[in-house]
């Protein structure tokens, strides 16, 4: 009986996740579409664009990889270094998810982490903050929101690549702002009150400063770590 109920809870969670992420996926799809267009300009076939989105599946990494892409002389070390550094935030995100999903069978959890991106991570945390849910529900919610985002990402990058001949300047349509809009909204969604002010202000100042003086995506790690550590130091003097 219990197992059946857990299964039911899980399918509800999956459905809720997919539903909550549907519109967010469209924003992600715009970004994927832009990636597709730019990949076409770099000489990627539709297959390559789709394959990269399927296997690498990290928008920021893919964009930066495109900017340093040179088919004649592939800078493998540079590409791998970029992939590692730009995706370091996934390490922090996985760390924050674990306590919520504790008890999920390891194989399932580690397979599920393949589709970990900012969007389904943030939505799952938000869900957890708004209402405490069973981990069956939450893990399925994570998978449901992740899967719809994943499929949209792959489809939109292929579509963008195919349409690449007809569209030249994606910035003109306001697509590039979709990313900021989404994360700003998610950020406001996870606010918990005044105790967040100091850590967030620290994170913001450090991130802005690092983005200004350091290359690459170091600013995310430095901002996130300094802000959260500041919060702990304040709470424990």
């Amino acid at each position, binding site marked *: 009986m219990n197992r059946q109920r857990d299964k039911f809870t899980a399918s509800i969670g999956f459905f809720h996740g997919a539903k909550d992420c549907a*519109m*967010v996926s469209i*924003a992600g799809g715009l970004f994927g579409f832009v990636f597709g267009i730019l990949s076409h300009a770099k*000489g990627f*076939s539709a*297959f*390559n664009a789709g*394959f990269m989105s399927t*296997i*690498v*599946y*990290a928008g920021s*990494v893919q964009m930066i990889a495109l900017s340093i892409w040179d*088919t004649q002389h592939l800078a*493998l070390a540079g*590409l*791998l270094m970029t*992939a*590692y550094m730009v*995706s370091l935030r*996934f*390490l*922090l*995100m*996985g*760390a*924050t998810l*674990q306590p919520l999903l*504790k008890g999920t069978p390891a194989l399932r*959890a*580690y397979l599920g*982490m393949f589709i970990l991106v*900012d969007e389904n991570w943030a939505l799952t945390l938000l869900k957890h903050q708004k209402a405490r849910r069973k981990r069956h529900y939450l893990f399925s919610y994570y998978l449901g929101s992740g899967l719809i985002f994943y499929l949209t990402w792959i489809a939109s990058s292929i579509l963008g690549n195919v349409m690449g001949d007809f569209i030249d300047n994606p910035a003109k*349509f*306001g697509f590039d702002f979709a990313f*900021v*809009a989404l*994360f*700003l*909204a*998610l*950020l406001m*969604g*996870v*606010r*918990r009150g005044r105790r*967040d002010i100091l850590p*967030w202000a620290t*994170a*913001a100042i450090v*991130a802005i400063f690092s*983005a200004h003086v350091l290359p690459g995506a170091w600013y*995310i790690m430095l*901002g*996130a770590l*300094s*802000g959260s550590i500041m*919060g*702990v130091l304040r709470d*424990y003097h």
Partner: protein
Amino acid sequence: MTTTEPHIILTFLLMGAIIYLNRILGYFIVSRVKINAKLETWLNYLPGCILTAIVAPFVLTADTAEFIAAIVIVMIMWFSDRILLSMVSGIAIVAVFRYLFG
């Protein structure tokens, strides 16, 4: 020119593997340590700080339209907590501004 060559596919696979490592490593580490109050506090502060760090540097490059849109997003979230409404409003404001003045 055919770009679907083995070395490109291999590059993607290696990049994917490295990123997957980051995806599972944080989860793995936390599952192996005993979570005390301090660590829990840190993990609770982390999400907001990650998002802040992702978003904040946008002030370095934002134009007027994007600033206005950002303020609208924050206000809508503050009063209604509706992610989609605020997001779509923000994108629409930027699109309209670019159409009118761009």
